[in-house]
């Protein structure tokens, strides 16, 4: 019983917050909803027996990425996006809405009916397949190359960010 309640709490939080991100005209409020959405998804990871992923989710998203979003939004002081926070074009607007509607229908129809072709077990909630130790062992053997490439990417990213912030030679010339 408890797991059902917990699932609905976190699913509700993440979906409501995701809707808040998309539909609230004030970007600051959007960022706050994004935090809630991340925490909700992290809770869902916990219920899926992957607490480490959930903690990484909080540590990276809520603790780092959204702090950066908040910095940007707060310093720009983007109080609101005006009356209409959405882009609008005569044709494109409806085309987009249609596209989103189609995708929604597709996903719902696919999900509400049966998922065939896979053999889903209903796993033992205490099964340790997501234990960090197993995860790390696979990550540092099978995914070793990917891991090093990630290191390279994380080397390039800050160099790019710093280079972008340079204004005509000097790093912080204003």
């Amino acid at each position: 019983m408890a797991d059902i309640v917990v699932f609905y709490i976190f699913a509700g939080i993440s979906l409501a917050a995701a809707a808040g991100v998309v539909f609230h005209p004030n970007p600051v409020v959007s960022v706050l909803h994004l935090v809630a959405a991340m925490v909700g998804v992290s809770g869902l990871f916990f219920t899926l027996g992957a607490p480490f992923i959930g903690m990484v989710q909080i540590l990276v998203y809520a603790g780092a990425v959204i702090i950066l979003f908040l910095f940007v939004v707060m310093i720009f002081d983007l109080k609101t996006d005006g009356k209409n926070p959405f882009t609008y074009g005569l044709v494109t607007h409806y085309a987009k809405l249609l596209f989103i509607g189609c995708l929604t229908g597709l996903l719902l129809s696919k999900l509400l009916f049966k998922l065939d072709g896979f053999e889903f077990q209903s796993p033992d909630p205490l099964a340790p397949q997501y234990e960090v130790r197993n995860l790390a062992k696979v990550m540092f053997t099978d995914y070793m190359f990917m891991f090093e490439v990630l290191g390279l990417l994380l080397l390039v990213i800050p160099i790019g960010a710093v280079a972008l912030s340079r204004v005509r030679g000097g790093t912080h010339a204003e």
Partner: protein
Amino acid sequence: MQSSLSIEITHYLFVSGAMFVLGLAGVLLRKNIIVILMSVELMLNAVNLAFVTFGYYLQDVNGAIITLFVIAIAAAEAAVGLALVVMIYKNYKETNIRFFEHLKG
């Protein structure tokens, strides 16, 4: 706890799918570039959720590992994207996505 109320894979996939669609709607409809970046994060989260769900129900550890990599890359993407936004805002005082169509050379 095998009642009719148990949580199954479709529940998680529904959350994931709904979140993905919401993120997509944000990317397509919103004007503010920062909100668009946030919506991209939402979509990536939805994908992560699907990965972990499938990994859990297929008893496979790869889903979690891919999720770790996606989280890392999504964070890096957000960092670079926001660096670009900050520089454009510093120069043009503008965050409307429509404005970016006119940026040339």
